């Protein structure tokens, strides 16, 4: 039984992965990402001797932002398009549950985003090595954390796309992105007012705290996160993504096709 479920999830994920990787718009975004990463070489040359720092900081930022762009582009319309174009009809008439479609699509989408991000990382590593920065192990950690963050963002996008049109989903996801990176700031601002502080604490624990996945400053200055830290962050990502996917499955279950 469990094997059957895993097999179905894998089949759906695989077809989603192939479908996404053949999308020409994805290659357009990747091309711009590669151009940007190479452009950081020029920016490094005008930084008064701080080439490696500038190239690494902007390169990692580029991988993050283009990875987000790819994720939002692919994920926010995913479920909505399936319903609008009725591709759900033929898949859900087979022995497949709605939650299996949601999780399978999530898996395939994450795999295609991860493949794109790893491609960008490879170009970045070549640029840093060329600049004399050696093999940037820290960047591997930073991008690993980014992939954990993208799990949450993909799940969030799928959640919104079960009931909102693609443009609205994009707005919601971008809003949550900014909130997710500002929760610490919110706590700091609210700390002097007890009422606001309780509300801020509630939001801090309820909303996805995306700053947890941001270790770019740490690795840029030569440090690496401890293994137990990696495990905790990975667990946070898996649990939050699972929560959003359960929510998406519930919403999809109630939806008339």
């Amino acid at each position, binding site marked *: 039984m469990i094997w059957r479920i895993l097999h179905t999830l894998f089949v759906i994920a695989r077809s989603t992965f192939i479908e996404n990787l053949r999308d020409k718009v994805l290659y357009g975004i990747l091309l711009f990402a590669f151009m940007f990463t190479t452009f950081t070489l020029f*920016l490094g040359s005008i*930084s008064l001797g*701080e080439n490696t720092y500038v190239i690494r*900081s902007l390169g990692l930022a580029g991988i993050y*932002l283009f990875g987000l762009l790819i994720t939002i582009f692919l994920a926010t319309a995913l479920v909505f398009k399936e319903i609008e174009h009725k591709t759900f009809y033929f898949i859900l008439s087979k022995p497949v549950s709605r939650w299996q479609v949601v999780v399978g699509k999530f898996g395939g989408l994450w795999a295609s985003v991860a493949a794109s991000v790893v491609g960008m990382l490879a170009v970045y590593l070549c640029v840093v090595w060329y600049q004399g920065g050696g093999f940037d192990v820290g960047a591997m950690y930073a991008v690993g954390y980014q992939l954990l963050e993208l799990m949450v963002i993909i799940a969030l996008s799928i959640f919104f796309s079960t009931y909102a049109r693609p443009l609205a989903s994009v707005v919601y996801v971008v809003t949550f992105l*900014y909130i997710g*990176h500002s929760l610490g700031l919110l706590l700091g601002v609210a700390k002097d007012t007890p009422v606001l502080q309780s509300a801020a604490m509630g939001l801090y624990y309820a909303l996805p705290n995306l700053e947890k996945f941001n270790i770019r*400053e740490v690795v840029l200055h030569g440090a690496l996160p401890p293994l137990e830290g990696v495990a905790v962050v990975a667990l946070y990502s898996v649990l939050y993504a699972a929560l959003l996917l359960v929510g998406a499955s519930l919403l999809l279950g109630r939806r008339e096709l």
Partner: protein
Amino acid sequence: MVAVYKYGLYAAVATLFILIACVQMVSDRQKPSVPFIALQSLPAPVLSGAMLGLRSAAASLLWLQTIQYIGGTGGGLAGVGDSIERVVALDPKFSYPYAFAVLMLPSEGKEAAEQAIALGKAGIAQNLGDWRIPYYLAMTYHLTLKDTTNAALYMNIAANTPGVPEGIKLSAHNYGLRSDLREETKQIWVAIYENSADEVVRAQAQNNVEHISIMQLLDQAIAAYKKVQGTYPTNLDQLVKAGILPSIPTDPFGIRYGISPEGVLTYQL
């Protein structure tokens, strides 16, 4: 007819591009009607939030903008201190802006020098392992503020920073150690030793006291040799052979001593 239409369209595209470029040139010559909100004018937390937590990338961009501003004004540094404060607020571990500020800003006047010193101290507090910050800070104290006491302190920090070039290390170790200033500097280190609870600082102070004491001892031994022998020794082993010293003491910083023909103590690492 179809060909005329097609080429007409190509011509229209080319003409429009040229017109757009001309209009852009005209608009660039005009003064902007809306003041441009420079990157520097946004507070660091706002900028960090706007860039989705990509603080080091924001710091890099702000740093590049600062350099471009200096280049664009032909080396003018007005407002650069504030800009550098924002850079390091975004990424406190970005070391070069601290060093740059300490080296360059003091030439703009007293206020700028104070800002540079504050930045330098903030950089040292971050424990960045960048010898340039304390070294440039020492230079600023020495050259601009004529404060040799603080200059010596920061020279010492620079000398003990891992990765400092050998030449810098040597000159930093021996800053303020002209023979007439050695006792004064030694007393400063004794005071630091007696008044600090930090084990690392106390160990550092103890090493410096020992280092200065060895130099004073060697100076005295050379003077004693001259008095007895009538000439200066050609090397320090002669002080041991002459029975003036039991042995040549080992310097805590690994400095090896020699003697010039004029009888002046020399040093090398």
